[in-house]
């Protein structure tokens, strides 16, 4: 049985919205890595110019997910695009702050705010 996709996504205009799955914490590290590369490739091949990562209140995550975010960011940067994070749990927010990733991307409470953040930067 194929492992569930840790990074299912949808498009909202020219924004790719990725919703992280709760099962991420239990997934094989290698799967998270390879699937994040698949996601980055999909972004590159799509018409999207911005990306929103909805953390879906994921309780916590390891540095492997931080690396996955950077992989996606490289694909977004290559298009001159923008990325925003949203819907982080309290500890998840702390992880992003500890890693100083809040200096790279806006961290928003809601998906709507994150969409607004990337769209306003695209204008």
């Amino acid at each position, binding site marked *: 049985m194929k492992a569930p996709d840790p990074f299912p996504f949808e498009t909202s205009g020219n924004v790719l919205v990725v919703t992280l799955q709760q099962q991420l914490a239990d997934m094989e590290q290698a799967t998270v890595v390879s699937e994040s590369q698949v996601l980055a490739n999909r972004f590159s091949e799509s018409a999207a110019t911005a990306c929103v990562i909805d953390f879906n209140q994921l309780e916590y995550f390891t540095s492997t997910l931080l690396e996955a975010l950077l992989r996606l960011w490289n694909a977004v940067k290559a298009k001159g695009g923008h990325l925003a994070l949203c819907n982080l749990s309290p*500890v998840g927010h702390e992880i992003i702050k500890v890693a100083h990733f809040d200096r790279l991307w806006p961290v928003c409470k809601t998906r709507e705010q994150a969409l607004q953040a990337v769209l306003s930067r695209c204008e």
Partner: protein
Amino acid sequence: MPTILVVDDLAADRILAGGLVKKIDEMTVIYAEHGKDALEQIELHLPDLVLTDLQMPEMNGLELVQAMRDDFPLIPAILMTAAGSEGIAVQALEQGAASYVPKKHLAAELHETVVRVLASSAEERSQTRLMYRMTETTFVLENDLELLSSLVSHLRQVLQQRRICDESDTIRVVTGLDEALLNAYYHGNLEVDSALKAENHNSFHELAEQRRTELPYRNRQISITARFSPAEAKFVIRDQGGGFNPDDLPDPTDPDFLERPSGRGLLLMRSFMDEVTFNDVGNQVTLVKRKTQVSNVDDEVPA
């Protein structure tokens, strides 16, 4: 003699439910008028079970169940449901309530439901009492990520049972442990260099997978010793690799390194644990988390 807390804003309903509970062998009954009052009573008396109405002022039954799940996860809650509150009852069950009894069927069903819920929670309490008496435990694991993940879940449970810290801090500790174990696995036993990630992320994991089956890597193990005292939890994680010097790692928060693909594991460990120390070789790390104030409950060992 079990203690049952009956929570209902209507005095007549409290008395009715309390009277039915008292008819069950050797039960002590205490009362509260709403959820907030109930939480105070729980802190004072640590009842064995909470029997609660759903619709109450100040804090309703659903909110009470949610609060109990966070602060008193081992105390089961039974809901008393009035007609029309079935939807909220389902929500409460999903949030962790043990069972429910419609108010119109209290006389017929309460006795059996209370006895059944107390019996199943007794086993869990017994396990907690046992865990509280564990001072040290050691695991020796082969290079298996699934085992490491299971270990982290187990240690999380022990931390919750020992009430070393609150739920948020427990999650932080779990994050730190996860990172330490991943370091021991990838960089310790399998000696896969983070520099590979900068070239090709897949190469890093492909090499790790390859080395899992090759000598000398495949026979290496990771040992984890967890020591618990009233004041702290200490975890000693040792791999069988050649070690490293943690001072050689660049600061991942330095703007020049911010977008590097690796190097944040140690940062997260240090941020979320009170102490992180390596041995001279660099193949053993000790992580310490000191006890924080969990609640106003007496910190005595459960009898």
